[in-house]
């Protein structure tokens, strides 16, 4: 036995993660000790400050890494390099907007059930609602999820990656089940997400075990070193790699591991859906990017058919199914699957440009996603008595919205155009960058399919725009109609942030593209 040597811990480099996770722990204590009345205000302020602070810390570390190069932290469990910091920055920015939307309330009601444990429709629940109980646990849960997401793309070994995966997933399973309205759907989403998530993390773990068996290490760089050896155990290696990738593909919602996406996105509280759709995807793609670029370059030939098939399936199935949806959240869910397919193009490219294009695409996609779901949360039903009830998520309820709430509709149209990849929006630049990276990587047949898919996808985005601006509002028999609520202004701030970002990245993408390009180097 060798003597134990304590690992060097570079606390400075850990600041962003420590700020977020520390705040999360602090928030649990606040839940325990701070009186109910002020809890929500305290938690909101704390969340916003912590995420902002972490963002500043990431910017600071970015400067350090640019001048001194990346480094291993905590004995190699975490890595600090360009892609990790860029992804973390994107994550913090997006979760900043996400938290604002999560915190927003309308007429004193936020999007979450006052008592998650109460039976839906029971008198107990009704009493809790009248008493004005608030589920402020949402904030620490979100912060824990963000903490997991920050670690995920920076993980230097598979164990850290696995733990981060669980730390980000477990709070999300719970958050999905906390919707204030349509409790049954929400609980169902939670159960589905949980069971399938646990199922896929078992795959991930098994893959990790096989890779450990193959290389004798769970460190990504060690595994990469062992790849060329192939000492008669190549099936161990290949099966392990496939299993790990499948576990990650589940999180990004790639076909055929996508089935949970529409159900969970529809059932979860809309602010959480936005947060989850944007941030989980960013984090998981960050990790996937690292795994594929660090471990598998020696396996390109073996994996290309596999990844190509997944990418094609994902783009086609996502696009085709999005077209037939009649629910806004489901439509956006399928569109997010299709986008996962587009991002996969950049990953398949296996090229420096692939990394930077994926990073940029994730930012563009995340901004539009958070913004779009934030707006979906504001469009509500109003019954005959004038009470505001749940979200008006059926597509037909969005008809004619352009005339009644032009600003909201224009913002929503902007996000849709960004999804569709129309020039002058961030989405266009993102698609452009990813496609050209894929072409440079020799994957031009994929690009042809991607172009066709995005052409077909534009159909349903445009359909929604047509619906909002050029269709007469439908009237229902029972006097229900669609209305837009204002909230407390937090959503407005978040959506404006996203909208400005989307336009800015579309018009002047160069600074961010340069930034992403300078990030595009993985530490081995």
């Amino acid at each position, binding site marked *: 036995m060798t003597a134990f040597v304590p690992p060097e811990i570079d606390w400075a480099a850990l600041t962003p993660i420590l700020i977020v996770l520390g705040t999360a722990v602090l928030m649990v204590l606040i839940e325990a000790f701070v009186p109910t009345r002020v809890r929500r205000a305290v938690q909101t302020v704390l969340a916003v400050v912590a995420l902002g602070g972490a963002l500043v810390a990431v910017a600071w570390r970015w400067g350090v890494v640019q001048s001194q190069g990346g480094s291993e932290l905590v004995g190699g469990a975490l890595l600090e390099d360009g892609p990790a910091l860029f992804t973390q920055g994107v994550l913090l920015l997006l979760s900043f907007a996400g938290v604002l939307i999560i915190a927003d309330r309308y007429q004193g009601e936020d999007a979450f059930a006052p008592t*998650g*444990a109460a*039976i*839906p429709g029971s008198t107990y629940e009704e009493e809790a609602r009248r008493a004005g109980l608030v589920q402020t646990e949402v904030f620490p849960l979100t912060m824990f999820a963000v903490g997991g997401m920050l670690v995920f793309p920076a993980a230097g070994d598979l*164990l850290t990656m*696995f*733990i981060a995966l*669980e730390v980000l997933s*477990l709070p999300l*399973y*719970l958050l999905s*089940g906390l919707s204030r309205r349509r*409790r*049954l*759907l929400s*609980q*169902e*989403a*939670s*159960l*589905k997400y*949980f*069971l399938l998530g*646990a*199922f896929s993390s*078992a*795959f991930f*773990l*098994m893959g*990790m*075990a*096989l890779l*450990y*068996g193959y290389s*004798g*290490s*769970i460190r990504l760089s060690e595994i990469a070193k062992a790849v060329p050896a192939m000492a008669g155990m190549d099936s161990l290696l290949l099966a392990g790699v496939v299993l790990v990738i499948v576990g990650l593909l589940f999180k990004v919602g790639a076909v055929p591991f996508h089935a949970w996406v*529409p*159900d969970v996105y*529809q*059932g979860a509280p809309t602010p959480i859906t936005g947060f989850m759709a944007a941030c989980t995807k960013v984090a998981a793609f960050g990790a996937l990017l690292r795994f594929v670029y660090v471990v598998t370059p020696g396996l390109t030939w073996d994996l290309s058919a596999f990844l190509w098939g997944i990418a094609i399936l994902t783009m086609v199935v996502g696009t085709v*199914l999005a077209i*037939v*949806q009649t629910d806004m959240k*489901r439509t956006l869910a399928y569109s997010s699957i299709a986008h996962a397919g587009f991002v996969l193009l950049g990953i398949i490219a296996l090229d420096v440009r692939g990394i930077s294009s994926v990073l940029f695409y994730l930012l563009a996609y995340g901004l539009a996603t958070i913004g779009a779901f934030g707006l979906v949360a504001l469009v509500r039903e109003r019954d005959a008595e004038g009470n505001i009830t749940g979200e008006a998520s059926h597509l037909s309820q969005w008809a004619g919205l352009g005339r009644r709430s032009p600003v909201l509709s224009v913002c929503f149209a902007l996000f849709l155009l960004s999804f569709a990849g129309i020039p002058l929006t961030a989405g266009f630049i993102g698609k452009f960058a990813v496609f050209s990276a894929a072409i440079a990587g020799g994957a031009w047949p994929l690009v042809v399919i991607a172009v066709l898919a995005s052409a077909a996808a534009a159909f349903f985005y445009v359909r929604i725009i047509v619906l909002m601006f050029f269709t007469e509002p439908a009237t229902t028999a029972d006097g229900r109609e669609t209305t837009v609520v204002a909230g407390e202004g937090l959503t407005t701030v978040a959506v404006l942030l996203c909208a400005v970002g989307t336009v800015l990245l579309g018009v002047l993408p160069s600074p961010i593209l340069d930034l992403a390009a300078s990030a595009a180097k993985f530490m081995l």
Partner: protein
Amino acid sequence: MSLVNYLVLSGILFSIGAVTVLVRRNAIVAFMGVELMLNAANLTFVTFARMHGELQGQVIAFFVMVVAATEVVIGLAIIVSIFRTRGSASIDDVNLLKS
């Protein structure tokens, strides 16, 4: 005894777990299937640790156990709340969400 036998065993356990998820209707049983899969992975880790003559695999097994336990906590919370709502823990009853 060859270490390969342990690997075969863990493979069998893993498959049993996966099949349990696929065929059992009760959410708790399905979840037990997942736990079985995690433990199969644990067995693999420990076997490989033995094979490579080091301890890392065993340490990983500890971590996995902790993760499995937290999964149990969260999973049971979700399953219990659904059970209380519907009076059933069958995962075939939860299909309101579909296309």
